C-alpha cells in the first residue's frame, strides 16, 4: 500500500500519448514555486476553499473537535484544532476536501488498465508523479513493475533527489524518465528548493550512463530561474548526456497559489506576485536554448 493524492486520467503532457498520471504524496524538496502544495506532506491533509462554502453548517455538526463554526452566518475554520479525522467532509460539500488516501499498486493498475485501449492507440501509458514518487520507494517500484507486467509504457517524473540505489531498482521497469532540472547554480538551487543539487546531478548522470531515455523538464519561473546562465546550463546538460532526448520548458502558472491558503500553508510572497506582474518571453527562451543544443526544445 502507498499514499497518493490524485490519479488523473487523460494526461497528455506527462510523457507520450494519452496517459494516466498517479500523483504520489510526499516530497523531499520545497520548491518555492511548487503548484502542488498538497503533495509536500506524507500525511493526509484537509483543504478548505471558502469560495465554495455555502455555510450550510453540516460540517459543524459532524466535527468532534469544534473546528468548524458558523459565526454571523459565515463559516469559520480553526485549523489548529483540527485532528485530521475528515469527518467534516459531508456529501456534496464542495468546500472541504481531503488530499491523500491509501491505495495498493494492484488497485492503481486495475484502474489504469481501464484506459489500455487509449494508451495503445496513442502510444501512451502510465506516469508516476508527485510529490516525489521515489519518496515512497517500495510502493513506487511495485507500481512500475506491475505496470510493465501488464504491458504498459511507463514514465516517472522525478526531482532526482533520491538515493541512487532506489533509482537502480527502477531501471528495468521505466521506459522514460521525466527528470526535473530546476536551477543550474547550486547556491540558488538550495535557496529555491531547499536542497543541494549534487545528488540530483549524480542521478542524472547515472540514468544517462545506463542508457535509459530522459526528457529534461525545466520549470521556467520569472524572477527566479529565467536567467541566461540557467538557460545555458540547460543546453549544456542536454548536450552532455546522449540519452536526453528532449528538453521541455514548463512555463509558470499560478494555478497552485490558492491551494496554499486552502491548506493553511504560507506561500512565498515573490511567487504570489508573479502571476500579475511578470511575463516571460517563452518563445524567446525556447529559441535561446534551442540555438545552443541540437536536442528538441519545446513547451511542455
Amino acid at each position: 500500500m502507498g499514499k497518493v493524492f490524485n490519479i488523473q486520467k487523460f494526461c497528455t503532457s506527462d510523457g507520450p500519448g494519452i496517459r494516466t498520471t498517479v500523483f504520489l504524496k510526499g516530497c523531499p524538496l520545497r520548491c518555492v514555486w511548487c503548484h502542488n502544495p498538497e503533495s509536500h506532506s506524507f500525511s493526509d491533509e484537509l483543504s478548505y476553499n471558502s469560495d465554495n462554502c455555502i455555510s450550510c453548517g453540516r460540517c459543524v455538526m459532524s466535527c468532534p473537535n469544534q473546528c468548524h463554526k458558523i459565526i454571523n452566518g459565515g463559516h469559520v475554520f480553526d485549523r489548529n484544532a483540527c485532528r485530521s479525522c475528515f469527518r467534516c467532509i459531508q456529501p456534496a460539500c464542495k468546500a472541504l476536501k481531503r488530499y491523500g488516501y491509501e491505495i495498493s499498486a494492484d488497485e492503481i493498475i486495475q484502474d489504469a488498465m481501464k484506459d489500455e485501449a487509449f494508451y495503445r492507440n496513442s502510444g501512451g501509458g502510465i506516469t508516476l508523479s508527485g510529490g516525489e514518487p521515489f519518496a515512497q520507494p517500495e510502493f513506487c517500484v511495485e507500481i512500475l513493475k506491475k505496470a510493465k507486467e501488464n504491458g504498459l509504457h511507463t514514465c516517472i517524473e522525478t526531482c532526482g533527489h533520491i538515493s541512487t540505489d532506489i533509482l537502480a531498482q527502477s531501471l528495468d521497469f521505466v521506459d522514460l524518465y521525466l527528470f526535473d532540472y530546476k536551477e543550474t547554480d547550486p547556491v540558488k538551487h538550495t535557496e529555491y528548493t531547499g536542497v543541494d543539487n549534487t545528488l540530483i546531478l549524480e542521478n542524472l548522470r547515472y540514468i544517462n550512463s545506463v542508457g535509459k531515455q530522459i526528457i529534461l523538464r525545466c520549470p521556467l519561473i520569472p524572477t527566479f530561474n529565467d536567467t541566461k546562465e540557467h538557460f545555458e546550463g540547460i543546453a549544456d546538460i542536454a548536450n552532455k548526456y546522449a540519452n536526453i532526448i528532449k528538453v521541455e520548458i514548463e512555463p509558470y502558472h499560478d494555478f497552485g497559489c490558492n491551494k496554499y491558503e486552502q491548506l493553511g500553508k504560507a506561500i512565498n510572497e515573490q511567487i504570489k506576485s508573479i502571476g500579475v506582474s511578470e511575463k516571460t518571453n517563452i518563445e524567446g527562451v525556447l529559441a535561446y536554448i534551442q540555438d545552443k543544443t541540437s536536442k528538441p526544445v519545446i513547451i511542455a
Partner: protein
Amino acid sequence: MYFSFIRTLFGKIDMKIINEKLNYLKELVFESDNTACFIEREKFLNNLDTSVYNVESLNYHANILAGMLDNVSVPVDENDIFVGRVVEGVLDSFEGVPNRTLKSNGHMSPEYARLWQKGYKGILADIKKNAEQRSDEKSMVFYENARIVVEAIRRYSKRYADAARSKGLTRAADALERVPYEPAYDLYSALQGAWIVHLIASCYVGARDYAFGRLDQSLYPYYLKELANGTTKEEIEDILAGFFIKTNEICGRTSWNYKRKPILCNSSKQYVNIGGENPNELSFAILAAAKKVNMAQPQIVVLLDSGANEKFTDATFEALTVLTDKMNVYSYTSVKSFLLEKGLSEEIASDFTYSACCTFDLNHRNIREEYFLPSVQTFCNVIYEKDFDNINEIVEAYFDALRENLLEHLDLVQQKVSFTKNRKAFVLDALLIGDCTEKCRYPLNGGLTYHVYNVFFSGIATVADSLAAIDKLVFEEKRFTYREFIDIVKSNYQGNDDVLAFVTSLPKYGNDLSVDKYAAMVGEAFVSMVNSISLPKGKYAIPGFYSLDKDNRWAKDIPATPDGRLWGDPFSENQSPTYGADRNGITSLINSVSRLPLEKTATGGFNLTFSGAVKPEILKALVTTFFEKGGLHVGITVLSRRELEDAMKTPDKYKSLTVRLYGFSEYFINMPEWQQRAILNRTAY
C-alpha cells in the same frame, strides 16, 4: 471562365485575389440582416392573383413556383464565385411571415448525382416516359407538375446566366446556359447547377435541411473532369470553398428557436458527407476547402471506416482540430454493420448519410421523420404513480409506457398523407428522388421505397442516475421505503436538503464506474424496444440517443428526479452525463458512454468539450478508441471559458465564434443567455 479571367489578368492564379474574394463573401454573410426575410417571395405569395393561380388546379403549387421564379430578381455580386442569391428585406409586419402557401418538406438529400448525369431534361424525359406507360391521372399530374417546375428553373437559370455575364462572371454564365437543365460537364458546372436547385428548394419553395449527401462520391467524376481540363488541385479547393460559403448565405445566423430569421429555411444546417469505404482525392479537397472557409456551414460529416486509409484518417483529425464544432465524425463501420443486421442490402447499407441534427438517412433514398420520445417525463410519471420492489420492475413498467407512446406516434404518422399535401410539400423535391420519378408518385403517396423514422431517447444520464439513486437508497441500503423516497423527490426535496446533498454526491454516469450499468440497462431496453417494432416493408425505425434542445425546452414541465435534479432544471444532453457530473477525465467519460448499446443505433450524438487546442493525434486516439468500443459519433467543441465570458459581454468582437450545440455548430453570440450559460457549464477537458 472565372479562373481563366484571373489567369489572363495576372498570368497565373492570383491567390491573393481568391482569398480577398472569399473574405469579402464571408463578410457579406456577417453583415447581412438576420431579421430580414426573402422579401420578393413574401410579396409574391401575399399578392397571389387568384384569377391566375387557381387553388383548385392540380398544378396550383407548381404554377406558383413557376410564377415566382419568373418574377424574382437574379442578383449577382461581382465577387461571386457561384451565382444565386435571394433579395432580402424587412417587412413592416412579421405577421404571416414566412408565407406557407408554398412550403416543401426538406430534411432530405436530393439525388444530385442523377441531376448532374441527366440534367432536368433527362429526368423529365424519364418521368414523361414512366407517366405515359402508367397513363393514370396521378402520374400525368406528376409529370405536368414536373414539366412546369423544370421549365421554370430553366428560365430562371437562363436569366441568371445573363445577369452573371453582365457582371463579367463568364464561367458562371456559361454554366447556367446549360445546367441544371442539361447534364453537368465539369465540377464547377455541377456545383453551380446544384446551387440553383438548393437555393430554390431552401429559399423559394422553402424548407430547412436539404443536404448534399456523399459529395466526395457523387461529385468525383466531375472532379476528375476538372483536373483533366487543367484545373489544379488548389484551384479546385477554391471552387469548393466558394461553394461552401454559399451555404452560409441562406439560413440566417441564429438558432431555429431564438430570434430566428423569418424564412422557412431558418437555421438550416448544410451537411456534406464524405469518407466511407472509399475516400478519394476529392474527400481531401473537401476537408481543405472547409478549413479555408471555416464558417458555421457547411457541417462536414466524416464517415470513418475502421479500414480507411491512414492518410484520410489523419487528414480527418487534422481538419477536426481546425473545424472543431463544424465537423461530425461517425463510425461508418458500426452503422453499416447495424444496417446489415436490419436486413438492408449491402448496396443500401453502404450508402447512408447524416443530415441535420445528427439524423440518419439512406442517402437520397428516403425521407425521414424524427420523433423524440418523452423519455424523462414518462419516467417521472411511472416512478411517481406506482410502487416498485426492484429496479427491473421499474424498467419494465417504464418501457411498457414508452412503447405505448411510440406505437401511438407511429400510427399517427403512418396515416395516409393527402395527395394535395404531398404535391405541395414535394413540388420540387420529388424530382430528385429516383423512386418518385420512376413511379410518378410523391414520396408519401407511394413514391418511396424507404421511409426512415429516427426515434430518439433523450436524458439517458438523468434516467440512469435516478435509477442508481433509487436502487441504492431504497432497495440496497433501505434508508427509505420506495414511497418515502419518491415523496421526497416529488416534493422537490422540500425540507430534505440532506437527502438532496446525498443523492447529488452519489457516483454518476460518465466516470467509468459501476453505476454506468444503469445507463447500459436503460439503453439496452430502449434499442430493443425500437429495433423490435414491426413496420411495413421499407419502413425503418432507427434508435438513437439524442436530445436536440429538449433537455432545456421540456425541462420546465418536468418535476424533480431521484438523481437530485430539481423541478425545471435541464436534464442530460444527448449521450452525455449530466453537465458537470463527469469528473474523472475524458477517457473515463468515453468508457462510460461506450457502455450504451451504440452499435445498435445509427443516429444520435456525443459531444466532447475541450478547454484548449488538442493535438490531432490525441483526437484520433480518443475517437478511434471510442469507435473500437462501439461508439457511434463524436462532435467536439474547443472553448476557452474566458473567451466565452468575454463574448457574452462584448458580442461584437466575436461574430464568428461558434460552439457545438446538440448536433451542429451555432454562433455563440446569437444564442439566448440560458443556452450560453449551459455551454459554459459543460465539463471542459
